[in-house]
């Protein structure tokens, strides 16, 4: 297996050889492309209903330019900070002898399942100028108001906390997939752990950081819950304002089209990094099976533990503690709590289906994009990301429009809901898959071909097992994202359908805090269970 390191230099050549993709692959990817392009078609229909004058009027409203700038600033801050945090946590969990790694591997991912509007509301009740922190810690010292949490700082912090797991899981999948031969070689050559990290590990992780950051960036531009509560007016906020004002579906569509352009810019910026495709290596760790030695942290163990604890404390313990407080306060005041078991089962079933379907569907798109780069494959790749870049409500309404007209028999069924999740979350599954596939040496696949295997056989017996870390991470991310999804769940689910996310929303929007707390806590707790199997760090094999 060490041969991969030897002929490292030739691999780019291998990757660049142009081949025609198998027909089945093109067909599968095209069908998906057709599905995910639906929202964009819908937006085009709605936008062109308006005359060009109205359109210009909408797009050149005085505040639009400022809002675009603000959105860019927020996206840049959230993606960069998430990348740094994810890189540190990912490396500690996958590569070192950090204590309690199995625990950290699960709890550091769970903040993703907390809906952003809930996270924002909880943070406001704790950190707002006159929130709990001020009342408990500052008031006794005569401090009447603590610095404002509203605006950019609050929005950025909350969005980092709910979205860094996208980069974290993508990076972790890449770390699991890549062998340590290069890192060990670097150490053998006398380089220290820091130099090895920055000169060997980090460059290897660039495609994963880019894939994860793309998801974080798209999540950030499409978020409404956090930015509206924390009063940072972004583009998606402006789009929602059009919908809440009832009459302006055209303005909402026109602004959404701008958001599509916005997303393409972000996409191009991050895929430039993918394009280099420089580091492909066989999965030594996976093929070898055994877990290899970990970097000893030594006295760095304590700062490392502090980082993990602090992240978990802020992103998970604080929100859960406030929820628990709501619950206890409500129950002791005689509040009735609704039944949530049915809702919990609904959440688990639809999110589990979404994760499975999204990962299966992402495979052909990713294989086509990575192995057969070209105009067609990159077009499908790009379109696939639109569902995640646009506000959930826009996607939901697009599918309401097509679903109720074209497939009335399927409209408002579980199948329709899972299809909506597919359109929304396809890129979430693609991120970790892409960075995993970039690590699989095409030569391994070609070896399979020369031994007389058919392409599909090679794919299922060689590529898929090598992609395992990416498949599990992608599935986990889609599961967590689907657990909290709201607009599509409300509008496209079967009648009388309720899950944990809709329960949390229904109760919290009318200030039934105790009733909201129970399903919100269950959202986190129930999500922890599949995470143990999907991404829990396996116990280190005893030497």
């Amino acid at each position, binding site marked *: 297996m060490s041969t991969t390191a030897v002929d490292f230099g030739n691999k780019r050549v291998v990757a660049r050889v142009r081949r025609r993709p198998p027909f089945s692959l093109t067909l599968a990817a095209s069908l998906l492309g057709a599905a995910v392009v639906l929202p964009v078609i819908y937006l085009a229909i709605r936008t062109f209903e308006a005359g060009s004058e109205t359109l210009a009027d909408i797009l050149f409203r005085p505040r639009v330019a400022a809002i675009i700038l603000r959105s860019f600033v927020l996206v840049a801050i959230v993606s960069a900070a998430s990348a740094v945090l994810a890189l540190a946590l990912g490396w500690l969990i996958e590569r070192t002898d950090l204590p*309690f790694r199995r*625990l950290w591997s699960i*709890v550091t991912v769970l903040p993703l399942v907390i809906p952003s509007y809930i996270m924002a*509301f909880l943070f*406001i*009740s704790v950190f*707002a*100028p*006159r*929130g709990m922190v001020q009342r408990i810690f500052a008031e006794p010292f005569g401090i009447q108001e603590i610095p404002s949490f*509203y605006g950019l700082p609050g929005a950025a912090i909350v969005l980092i906390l709910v979205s860094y797991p996208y980069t974290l899981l993508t990076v972790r999948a890449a770390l699991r997939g890549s062998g340590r031969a290069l890192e060990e070689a670097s150490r053998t050559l006398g380089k220290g752990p820091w130099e090895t990290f920055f000169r060997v590990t980090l460059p290897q992780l660039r495609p994963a950081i880019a894939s994860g950051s793309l998801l974080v960036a798209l999540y950030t531009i499409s978020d409404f819950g956090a930015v509206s*509560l924390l*009063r940072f007016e972004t583009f998606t906020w402006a789009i929602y*304002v059009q*919908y*809440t*004002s*009832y*009459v*302006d*579906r055209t303005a909402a569509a026109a602004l959404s089209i701008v958001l599509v352009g916005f997303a393409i810019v972000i996409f191009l910026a991050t895929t430039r990094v993918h394009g280099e495709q420089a580091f492909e290596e066989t999965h030594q760790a996976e093929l070898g099976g055994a877990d290899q030695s970990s970097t000893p942290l030594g006295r760095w163990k304590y700062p490392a533990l502090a980082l993990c604890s602090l992240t978990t404390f802020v992103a998970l313990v604080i929100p859960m503690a406030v929820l628990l407080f709501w*619950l206890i*306060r409500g*129950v002791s*005041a005689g509040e009735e*709590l*609704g*039944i*949530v*078991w049915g809702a*919990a089962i609904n959440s688990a079933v639809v999110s589990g289906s979404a994760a499975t379907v999204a990962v299966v569907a992402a495979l052909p798109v990713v294989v086509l994009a990575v192995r057969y780069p070209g105009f067609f494959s990159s077009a499908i790749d790009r379109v696939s990301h639109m569902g995640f870049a646009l506000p959930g*409500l826009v996607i*939901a*309404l697009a599918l309401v*429009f097509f679903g*109720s007209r074209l497939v009335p028999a399927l*409209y*408002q069924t579980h199948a329709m809901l899972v299809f909506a999740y597919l359109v929304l979350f396809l890129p979430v599954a693609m991120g970790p898959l892409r960075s995993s596939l970039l690590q699989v040496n095409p030569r391994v696949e070609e070896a399979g071909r020369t031994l007389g295997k058919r392409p599909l056989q090679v794919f299922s017996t060689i590529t898929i097992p090598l992609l395992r870390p990416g498949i599990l991470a992608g599935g986990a991310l889609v599961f967590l994202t689907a657990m909290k999804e709201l*607009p599509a769940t*409300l*509008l496209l*689910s079967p*009648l*009388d359908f*309720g899950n944990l996310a*809709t329960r949390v929303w*229904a*109760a*919290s*929007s*009318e*200030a*039934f*805090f105790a009733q909201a707390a*129970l399903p919100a*806590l*269950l959202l986190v*707790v129930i999500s*922890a*269970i599949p995470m143990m199997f999907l991404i829990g760090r396996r116990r280190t094999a005893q030497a």
Partner: protein
Amino acid sequence: MFRLLIGLIGVLLLIAAVGCQGRPDPTATSAPTSVPEPTTAPRVASAQGPGELVVYSGRSESLVGPIIEQFADATGIDVSVKYGSTSEIAATILEEGANSPADIFFAQDPGGLAAVESMFATLPNDVLSHVPANFRSPDGKWIGLSGRARVIVYNTDRVSPGDLPSDLRGFTDPEWEGRIGWPPTNGSFQAMVTAMRVIWGETETRAWLEGIQANNPQTYPKNTPTVAAAGAGEIDVGFVNHYYLYRFLAEEGEGFAARNAHLTGGGPGAMILVAGAGVLDGADNSENAIKFIEFMLSTVAQQYFAGSTYEYPLIEGVNVNRLLTPLADINAPEVDMADLGDLEGTLDLLRDTGVLP
């Protein structure tokens, strides 16, 4: 450490289980026998049973779920509900168009109903006559089912009711600089601005919006966070609907540091708005939809709204919740719902003054 996690999960599941047992059976308390069959309800030929009804509700399940359940129990109708926010549901009905599975749209505010008005059937006169003319659509397309008052929610530590101006115009005074919170994207707020344009005229409404803007108001996305902010003392006053406060008092107890005030001088800031419903034109179950409206205007349902959601009943003979100021004591302006149709003009004004993007 890992066991700790398992332990935590166990504790939460236990709480969930206890929570389930704590829920009373809604049918046990509602005593369905006492539900009057509305006398004016058209009798459906009972050969094919009570039939079905698809409700699209822009009102939260937490508020209207129990009363919809009572309706189903009382009539035997197989009721299915889709919940969402009023604006999302309105947009959904518009996108579905003629294919909409909905029979009836139960909305949070008149703006949501007006948005889909063209898709509503005209309601029968005997149904419309249940509520006063100013609480229903002028064309008989929709009808109010419960009332809510526009109020000033104020922080009790920082403001005493005596400090409040007698009408909304007083809040443009520089003494309110940095002390005001409002939710300008909220439907009820926008309806209030429309009423302002009707009562005060365009020029004065524009001047008022600019005056409040000059006082740097805090902007909230909805009523709930506005009331929460008033309770926390983040703002001194907020322009909201009245009933959110009572939810906070129920959750946090009397210590919640905010209360409502009705503006003594009346005007748009003291107006009464309605939540209501309309029946979709060509609905499969329009007779059951009419039954739904009749039920919601029955004494039982109106008592539910007064008692459980802290709203104002719209029919005679139902007592207002004792926590609320009776309607007769509110100096509400005379505004016809017919005059509140020009939401577009209000939105233009809100954009022009930079309140909305």
